[in-house]
């Protein structure tokens, strides 16, 4: 009986998320009045997935904590909706829905993989939602954000330096810093500060001198990350900076030169550092170094391949054989047990988020906020891309988390923070539009 439900659920869950994903994109082409119904429909599908997945989880484990988790998930999603849709009357609903959906998928997979981490994760998420509930209003009302340029730089660089000096070495890279019982991954939070820094520097002046100063300070951020061997984050910061610089200056040459330099640095890094070389070797032919440099990536591909299009079903696969499965490689676990089609839907939901971010950025008139929105969009987009690309062997793996889904307090806090800032900017855009109309 349990087996029957697990097997049938493979298909029903794919169906649920597929319809949800379809709604994300069908909303894009419709006028605002018609969208409301779609978004309510999306919420129904989120709750359906919650029910279906937790039923399977409970039947397979008989663990009473699953039921508590399911209730907690439902409450969390409900309150999030309440905050964003009622308190902030005109929040961007698609972004809120997607945030809930991605969080939910993360909870489901973590319950499956490690109950203890799942419980911690939902506590982190609740805390993050609470902390960031005030962010939209702060972004919308306070005016000082564009003037803090050097303060951002100082905080950011100091934070990263702390990690580089005092950080714990995990998998060869320094990512974390422990303060008492709490382990923080500062680069996750500092990337938001970094975006604010670049936006504040380039929002008014974009002459050569300003560009050089901004580039030099940004280079310090990136170089500290490279020194900590946090290559994934270094890449995220670097690409984010390049795109922000390009949009602010509207100058192709910067973008072009930047990518040339980035490419050059990558080649130099390949020749200089053995840890870069091992990643590239593992990427080129993981099966040739299957128990060595290619261990992680080949285990990930075993899982994705064996799961196939429709997955093995929850508890029917072997995702526990994938290293760091709850953080960097959670996508492989999802693809194995819930199917490649389900995993593709996740990718499309992330794309939908990125498109909404860009859309909001385009609607804002004020350069500072426009650049912030753009920077956060690129930041999120690149992070999702390099983690998915790394897990699937599309690009060499660099070890970053999948935002909102991977286990980790810092990751979840920073991503929810990004989503909250975007909400604030969205409200700001709406407010600007109203002002425009009044003038007319």
């Amino acid at each position: 009986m349990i087996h029957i439900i697990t097997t049938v659920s493979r298909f029903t869950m794919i169906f649920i998320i597929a319809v949800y994903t379809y709604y994300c994109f069908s909303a894009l082409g419709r006028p605002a009045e018609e969208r409301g119904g779609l978004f309510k429909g999306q919420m129904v599908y989120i709750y359906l997935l919650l029910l279906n997945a937790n039923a399977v989880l409970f039947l397979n484990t008989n663990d009473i904590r699953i039921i508590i988790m399911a209730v907690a998930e439902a409450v969390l999603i409900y309150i999030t909706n309440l905050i964003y849709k009622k308190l902030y009357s005109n929040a961007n609903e698609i972004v809120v829905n997607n945030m809930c959906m991605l969080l939910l998928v993360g909870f489901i997979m973590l319950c499956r993989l490690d109950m203890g981490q799942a419980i911690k994760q939902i506590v982190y998420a609740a805390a993050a939602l609470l902390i960031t509930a005030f962010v939209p209003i702060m972004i919308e009302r306070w005016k000082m954000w564009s003037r803090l340029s050097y303060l951002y730089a100082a905080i950011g660089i100091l934070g990263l330096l702390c990690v580089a000096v005092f950080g714990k070495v995990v998998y060869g890279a320094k990512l974390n810093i422990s303060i008492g019982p709490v382990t923080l991954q500062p680069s996750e939070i500092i990337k938001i500060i970094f975006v604010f820094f670049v936006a504040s520097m380039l929002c008014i002046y974009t002459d050569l001198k300003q560009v050089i100063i901004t580039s030099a300070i940004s280079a310090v951020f990136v170089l500290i990350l490279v020194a900590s061997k946090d290559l994934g984050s270094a890449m995220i910061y670097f690409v984010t900076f390049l795109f922000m610089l390009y949009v602010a200056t509207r100058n192709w040459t910067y973008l072009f030169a930047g990518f040339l330099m980035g490419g050059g640095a990558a080649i130099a890094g390949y020749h200089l550092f053995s840890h870069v070389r091992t990643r590239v070797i593992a990427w080129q032919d993981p099966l040739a170094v299957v128990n060595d440099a290619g261990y992680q990536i080949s285990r990930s591909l075993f899982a994705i391949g064996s799961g196939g299009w429709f997955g093995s079903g929850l508890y029917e696969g072997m995702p526990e054989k994938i290293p760091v499965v709850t953080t960097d490689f959670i996508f492989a676990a999802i693809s194995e047990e819930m199917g490649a089609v389900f995993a593709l839907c996740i990718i499309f939901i992330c794309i939908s988020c990125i498109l909404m971010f860009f859309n909001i950025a385009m609607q804002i008139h004020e350069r500072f906020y426009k650049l912030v929105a753009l920077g956060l969009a690129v930041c999120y987009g690149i992070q999702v891309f390099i983690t998915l690309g790394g897990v699937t062997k599309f690009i060499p793996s660099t070890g970053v988390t999948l935002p909102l889904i991977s286990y980790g307090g810092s990751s979840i806090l920073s991503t929810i923070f990004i989503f909250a800032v975007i909400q604030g900017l969205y409200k700001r855009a709406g407010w600007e539009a109203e002002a425009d109309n009044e003038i007319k």
Partner: protein
Amino acid sequence: MRSNKEEIKTPKVRRKKRRSLNREFAVVTYSMIALYLALIVYFCYFVGFQSEAFINHSSNPRLSVMSEHTIRGDIKTSDNVVLAHSDYDGKNETRVYPKGREYAHVVGFSVNGMSGAEKDANFYLLRSHAFIIDRLKNDLFEKKNEGDNVILTLDSKAQEAAYNGMGSYKGAVVAMDPETGKILAMVSKPDFDPSTISQQWESLTSSSSESILLNRATQGLYPPGSTFKIITALAYDRNGRNDNVTFDCSGDFTSDGFTIHCYGNKAHGNQSFETAFANSCNTTFAKIGLVLKKNSLKNAAEDFLFNTDIPTDISNVKSSSFTMDKSANDALIMQTSIGQGNTLATPLQMALVASTVANNGYLMEPYYIDSIENNNGINVKTFKPVEYGRLISKKEANRLKKYMRKVVTEGTGTGLLTSSYKAYGKTGTAEFSSNKNEAHSWFVGFANKNGKKIAVSVIMEGAGAGSSHALPLAKKIIDSYLSK
């Protein structure tokens, strides 16, 4: 908000500026979308086409779980003879091998680790393409699905001839189709009974077992003996060949204190190169070895994939080795030129040499998994022949063909002279110990009849002259395959 004020004052200018700034936004958005599209296409391609190599990998722990849900499929020859089958009584699966010892090495076994086709096709045998409704029904009621059947390229007639012809000798046979690379027969002796492998495991793997489990066809490294003269002939063709030069053979030849004898000390007299090849004249080839440019023998051997991993779907294939370098003395050069010395080749390797010559210089990658069908015999997948590339030029291949034909028409291979097909080959008698009376019997060659081709490589350990043992066996295989 300075910019804001300006914008409000001059809405037209602002709008223009905004539109063009949004062009940069479009660039960023589209590049991001392009990245993701590439990722999605790649991901689908991986899941759809590339993932098999990963799923089927021995380090993937999930394969053992697949066997809990699937009844292992059958293994068959290309002419539909069942070689391996699982009897399932609703609880336990028993693997039976109807043809037993005849296919022991090539089909292999699926317990105590795996080998042969059971290993290389493990994933296909455990995957089910049964009718989807049946599979869903089985899934729901936790019944086992019927796994897919694997069809090998082997020809039961050729295999039977090879196996029976080997008799009680140790040795190996590889037969393949030069134009496709399909393995037609693969025999290794001594053999074992695959259905009782677990009971006999101890004795089969003990040190006194004469390596029964070793597939000599792909892993046995033997001195190639005179069959290596095909490669020496290629090197001679490439540098130094002079059709006007003749070679005088008095039965032995000494250089730098080392003497080479012809087989049975026979003096071949004055002969052309072609005749020397046909007679397998050792003194001539020793002399040629000494006049060849340094490394030209090595280059020729490596062109024929010595010292290289053999491209094939068969696992655990040993590469053949040619180690003679520039510093070699006369004795070693002379020995190496006639296939003694330190050179070692697998029977598969020598089959590839014959196959390449037969196929005008092109090597087709040898393979033995032909296709996959579901439990109802409906084709699921067919593996296509893969061309590895050109190893020698067409001219070179034609000349080697001419030499190998002469072996059959008037040399050591006349046993293959028949009106029913046209055969080419080279015999070999390889010494492997200090006892000159003990020698491996080799034959490497190919034949065609009405466009149907077969290349064979035969070695019979310690049997003696190539013409008296390996060649008659090769003939039986060729006869059985080309007579159909």
